[in-house]
């Protein structure tokens, strides 16, 4: 009976893992890259001279820019400069002639207060959004990502149940033994970072829980979801003077000083100004993401922007809310310093590799049954092609996206979308190639292509931009140099993998055909 249970879990682990493996591989790889989103953003805009600025100075720059460019906007949103990415990101709604508003996003230098002139590129934002929205429209991508996350949860737990000798096997690695080595690797990767895998998977469900598990909100609040959010973070809209008469706003640095008086040492992540320029203007200061582990979206202190009085203080944070916020914050890891961030990244890659080794094993086990056959069954060919395109093809696409950032003409219209198009076109090409060659030759060619592209990234940075390694290394600009160096490092790893595949192919050919000398001798007899 117990053995039956374990077998059932092994079956579930195998098939759930296969069906969602490729999607999960993509989600985990892009998610791992997202831990370096700010650095990738800096790397993607090499012409920008990033300068650090203090919060008051930076808020004054933001206010000056918005008062000049968006005086009549109903709302301003200021994403504060961060030491990892010292630029202000400003959002405001611009009402056009037809009356329909469109959201404008501008990146502003916190020191000069001028709009940053940089190449049109999404940089790290692309991986970040892809990680949970999969380039699908709202809310479909989030639903699909949440479904994949739940399947990951099921696969992880069924995998733990299947795998009885959890800690003994962690110290077992038998390299060079084919299928056995893949299993050892899969288990070691799984057990090594198991707390990370469980945390990252469960927290991803918690992040979107109000969307995916809303039954208790609907029941407790009679279908009024807004009432639930208002109880957590009392709404500020409609407070104070409702008259639309004009009134000068206090400078944001002065309001920030009031905020500091309420929240000593408080770092600001975001400032949102409602009805700027009117008598009922308010400014909401939201704590910086990553100032602590927990992340509770929606909180903050709201001040009357005309007289500086407190409209809404910091909300209390009862334990359940802090637990949920803790999961959210741990998932994003924005609080992590450089060492912990690298650990996050490596753990994310370990999860990606765990999924990858699982996919390889699924196919390897079934190919063994058809070892002698010249034609593989159709379904194994398809899985083989999806394995190749889903893993190496994705790496090719990421590498091509980075190369496109360096190579596409700066004046190209819709340049950022073209970068994304390059990503998907290369991924599609990889899939077609993989369907044509789902075997060793396909792996060799795609691994070589990915390695070549990644190795060329630092070269392109050197010659196509002013911030190649020859500049960034002496300056100690580790954000930009780090991306170039990491590309080179991963390029070398992929080249080593390609070499292994190539040598194995040579070995297999040598075993199939008897050595030449022997054949000649036979003919002589």
């Amino acid at each position, binding site marked *: 009976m117990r053995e039956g249970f374990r077998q059932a879990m092994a079956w579930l682990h195998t098939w759930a893992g296969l069906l969602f493996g490729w999607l999960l591989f993509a989600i985990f790889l892009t998610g791992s890259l997202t831990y370096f989103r700010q650095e990738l953003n800096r790397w993607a805009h090499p012409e920008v001279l990033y300068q650090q600025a203090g919060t008051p100075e930076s808020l004054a720059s933001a206010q000056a820019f918005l008062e000049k460019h968006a005086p009549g906007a109903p709302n301003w949103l200021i994403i504060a400069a961060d030491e990892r990415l010292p630029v202000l990101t400003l959002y405001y709604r611009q009402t056009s002639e037809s009356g329909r508003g469109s959201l404008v996003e501008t990146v502003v230098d916190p020191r000069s207060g001028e709009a940053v002139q940089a190449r049109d590129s999404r940089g790290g934002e692309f991986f970040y959004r892809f990680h949970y929205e999969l380039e699908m429209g709202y809310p479909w991508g989030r639903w699909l990502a949440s479904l994949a996350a739940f399947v990951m949860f099921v696969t992880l737990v069924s995998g733990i149940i299947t795998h009885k000798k959890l800690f003994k096997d962690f110290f077992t690695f038998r390299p060079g033994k084919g299928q056995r080595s893949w299993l050892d690797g899969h288990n070691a990767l799984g057990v090594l970072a198991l707390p990370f895998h469980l945390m990252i998977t469960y927290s991803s469900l918690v992040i979107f829980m109000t969307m995916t598990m809303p039954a*208790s909100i609907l029941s*407790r609040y009679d279908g009024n979801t807004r009432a639930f959010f208002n109880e957590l973070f009392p709404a500020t809209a409609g407070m104070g003077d409702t008259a639309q008469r004009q009134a000068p706003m206090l400078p944001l640095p002065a309001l920030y000083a009031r905020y500091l008086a309420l929240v000593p040492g408080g770092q600001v992540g975001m400032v949102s100004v409602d009805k700027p320029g009117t008598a009922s203007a308010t400014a909401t200061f939201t704590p910086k993401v990553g100032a602590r582990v927990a992340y509770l979206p929606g909180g903050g202190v709201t001040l009357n922007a005309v007289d500086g009085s407190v409209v809404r203080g910091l909300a209390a944070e009862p334990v359940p809310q802090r637990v949920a916020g803790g999961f959210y914050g741990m998932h994003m890891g924005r609080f992590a310093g450089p060492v912990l961030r690298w650990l996050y990244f490596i753990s994310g890659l370990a999860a990606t590799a765990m999924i990858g080794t699982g996919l390889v094993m699924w196919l390897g086990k079934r190919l063994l049954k058809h070892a002698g056959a010249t034609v593989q069954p159709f379904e194994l060919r398809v899985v083989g092609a999806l394995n190749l395109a889903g893993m190496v093809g994705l790496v090719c696409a990421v590498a091509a996206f980075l190369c496109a950032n360096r190579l596409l003409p700066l004046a190209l219209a819709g340049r950022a979308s073209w970068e994304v198009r390059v990503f998907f076109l290369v991924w599609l090409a990889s899939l077609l190639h993989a369907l044509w060659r789902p075997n060793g030759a396909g792996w060799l060619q795609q691994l070589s292509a990915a390695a070549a592209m990644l190795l060329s990234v630092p070269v392109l940075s050197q010659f196509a931009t002013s911030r190649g390694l020859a500049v960034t290394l002496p300056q100690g600009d580790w954000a930009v140099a780090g991306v170039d160096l990491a590309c080179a490092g991963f390029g070398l790893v992929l080249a080593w993998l390609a070499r292994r595949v190539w040598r194995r192919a040579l070995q297999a050919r040598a075993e199939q055909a008897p050595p030449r000398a022997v054949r000649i001798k036979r003919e002589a007899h």
Partner: protein
Amino acid sequence: MKTKTSGVPLAYRLAVTSRVVAAALGGYAVAALASVCLAWVLPMAQAQGVITSMMLGFVVYLAAALWCFACRSAWRAWAAMLGCALVLGVLDAGLYWAHLR
């Protein structure tokens, strides 16, 4: 529709499909109804109870989904899901009604 390449009988395929649906939809229904129940009974402020219930909902979903594949037949999976959903549904309705009075 039995394919000739794999000797898997149709009944088996249908049973697997049935279990998948029971786990995905039935399991979700049980999880959602359980979270509603928790949100009513947890001794916390209303919104905090709701947050806790949503977080625990995924654990219920996981347990329900695993059960659907661990039990002996697809029928049993459905029986468990529908049984739990029925009990929880009655409980939820009772709690909601008691609250209205």
